[in-house]
């Protein structure tokens, strides 16, 4: 089972494209694999004859487990099945990167947490994100004792003595998590349990923003491009991050703790897909034209709808934005996408009566809430960020300038 995403720990066979006896050439689509993120076609990288399928369609196995045997004609005996203790990938297979996806910095060198080889192996096996573990070894190195502590604290660890409240199926049905649901559950649990957050809400007059959007779409009429309020807000959020780099940052427990300030502004945009929540990335959102952002988000949404999101579409984000405005939500708070430092939750445009020049007037307004990791972002910084964002919404030409 190849590792097809950074957070993947197991995969399910969706469909075999070849059957035993078929001749395989490098590049042939061999199998479709469902991961926690998407269903992906996997190509053969060696030639031979498909000798045996070891994992049937619908079955789930851990990464590194053999899923089929390819006879390359050398007539060597089948390699022994790896024992549970030895799940290291075989030669030629993609070596699983022990760094969780989200700790990868999109720029410069990827952050490498000091951890012993044993810890890296166990973390891989237990599906623990090392970014969430505090190291107590020399220089903050993560050692097995730290991992054992983290495993005991993890909500997925079996709790022998105290029984957490369990939903009982008095009536109705139990729907087992699929891989995507499982990934979402693990991620939000990790976020909610490990990150001390606060929220700050601001609002802005949206008339100018909506007028600009109407102008832009009138000008783009017939080109096939259509700008949404969300596209404008992605760019606005990115420009505000450029002005407040402390918000475009991640927490790291390295040493006595670190704020990792990112040089690029890559925004994860929450998309509701049939498979569940997806957070694909708009890279360099501060430098992209709004029309480019619109095209990118649309392409990602179509991919998500078709369950074709690739791991590369999901990695490298430095900040997240979630918008429930289209559902008529006035205002909400979001959960941070770790190890990012903040997420912006955007509500819908609503009509309100405001006092303008001393007279009551009906205006359309927008509310948005920043959830921030207080370890690296203080209230004043969050407030300044929101003030900049409000200014941009009030003067929307700056968003497209």
């Amino acid at each position, binding site marked *: 089972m190849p590792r097809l995403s950074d957070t993947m720990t197991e995969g399910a066979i969706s469909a075999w494209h070849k059957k035993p006896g078929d001749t395989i050439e490098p590049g042939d689509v061999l199998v479709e694999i469902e991961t926690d993120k998407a269903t992906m076609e996997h190509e053969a990288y060696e030639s031979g004859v498909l000798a045996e399928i070891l994992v049937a369609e619908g079955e789930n196995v851990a990464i590194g487990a053999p899923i089929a045997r390819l006879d390359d004609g050398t007539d060597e005996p089948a390699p022994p099945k790896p024992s549970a203790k030895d799940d290291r990938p075989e030669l030629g297979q993609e070596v699983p990167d022990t760094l969780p996806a989200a700790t990868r910095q999109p720029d410069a060198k990827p952050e490498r947490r000091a951890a*012993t*080889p044993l810890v*890296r192996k166990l973390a891989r096996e237990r599906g623990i994100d090392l970014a969430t573990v505090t190291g107590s070894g020399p220089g903050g190195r993560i*050692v*097995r*004792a*730290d991992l054992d502590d983290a495993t005991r604290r993890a909500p997925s660890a079996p709790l022998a003595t105290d029984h957490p409240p369990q939903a009982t199926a008095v009536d109705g049905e139990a729907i087992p998590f699929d891989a995507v649901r499982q990934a979402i559950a693990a991620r939000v649990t990790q976020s909610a349990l490990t990150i001390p957050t606060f929220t700050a809400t601001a609002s802005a007059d949206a008339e100018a923003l909506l007028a600009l959007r109407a102008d832009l779409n009138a000008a783009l009429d017939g080109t096939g491009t259509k700008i949404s309020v969300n596209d404008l807000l992605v760019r606005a959020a990115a420009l505000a991050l450029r002005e407040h780099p402390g918000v475009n940052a991640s927490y790291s427990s390295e040493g006595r703790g670190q704020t990792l300030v990112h040089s690029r502004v890559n925004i994860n945009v929450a998309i509701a897909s049939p498979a569940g929540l997806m957070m694909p990335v708009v890279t360099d959102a501060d430098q992209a034209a709004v029309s480019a952002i619109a095209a990118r988000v649309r392409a990602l949404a179509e991919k998500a709808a078709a369950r074709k999101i690739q791991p590369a579409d999901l990695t490298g984000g430095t900040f997240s934005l979630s918008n429930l405005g289209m559902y008529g939500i006035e205002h909400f708070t979001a959960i941070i996408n770790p190890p990012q430092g903040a997420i912006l939750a955007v509500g819908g445009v609503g009509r309100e009566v405001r006092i303008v020049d001393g007279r009551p007037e009906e205006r359309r307004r927008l509310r948005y809430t920043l959830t921030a990791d207080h370890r690296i972002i203080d209230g004043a910084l969050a407030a300044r960020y929101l003030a900049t964002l409000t200014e941009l919404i009030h003067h929307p030409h700056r968003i497209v300038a």
Partner: protein
Amino acid sequence: MSLITYRQALNDALRSEMLRDEDVFLIGEEIGQFEGSYKITAGLLAEFGPKRVRDTPIAEEGFTGAATGAAMVGLRPVVEIMTINFSLLALDQIVNHAAKIYGMFGGQARVPMVIRTPGGGGQQLGATHSQNIELFYAFVPGMKVVAPSSPADAKALMLAAIRDDDPVLVLENLSLYNTKGEVPDEDVPGEIGRAKVTREGSDITVVAYSRMAAVALEIAGKLAESDGIDVEVVDLRSLRPLDRDTVIASVKKTNCAVVLEDDWLTYGIGAEIAATISDGAFDWLDAPVRRVAMAEVPLPYAKPLETAALPSADDAITAVRETLDATARRR
């Protein structure tokens, strides 16, 4: 079983083999009439006569070469080199001849020769008489090097070395000669190339050989009592062939290791063990492999300096504690 010294165990092994096989003979400086500087050959001239216990001049290259030739034509010489320091004079005979003849000449002749020689410092013999240069021989393909740490292993490995068809260097140790232990009365040759877990433990692996393997057992007992640390001791017993599997299996169990060696640190046996662990147990390591070795100086003569330069039990205890601290497992 008898409780005898390491010295006696070696003497017993030589005598047994001379009785068993008349091709076995001893050769070296002052091993006959004087019965050897360290009395390993005591009584053997009287019992077997000058044909089989041959005194030589001070000429290591000459008698090692003679023994190599004798071995090639079917005898089984056991060469005593008074201390390993003097083997340097015979280096060419050992490295370029004894170790290579079988491989270089298409297997036409084997060299079933034993070189037995003590290493070790701590006796105030000065820098040129106190070295631990077994590595020079363990480095050379074609050689076998064994390094027993107990009387029982001394006997078993000496028996095995004499019966082996390749040149085997048996590393003895000056400070082990008087140590006592239970030794089987019967002659059971040991297996060259097999390490032994001399103490089972779960917290940390201590790898050692020769004198330091005895030190390892000593500190394991102390640490169990003082710190509750459960040390596993791996006695290498053979430096070539090296039993990597036993070392790796132990580290997979304990997740950390300290190597004790009497030689110098840089390029030493410990470096080879650390590399072995890195190759074979990388994913099981929870702390870097530590080495405890001799200070990188010619060993001083003055007693306080000599003591300071040699690796001690206290040094080993410190390294074990610090390694366990690095894994955050020490209570």
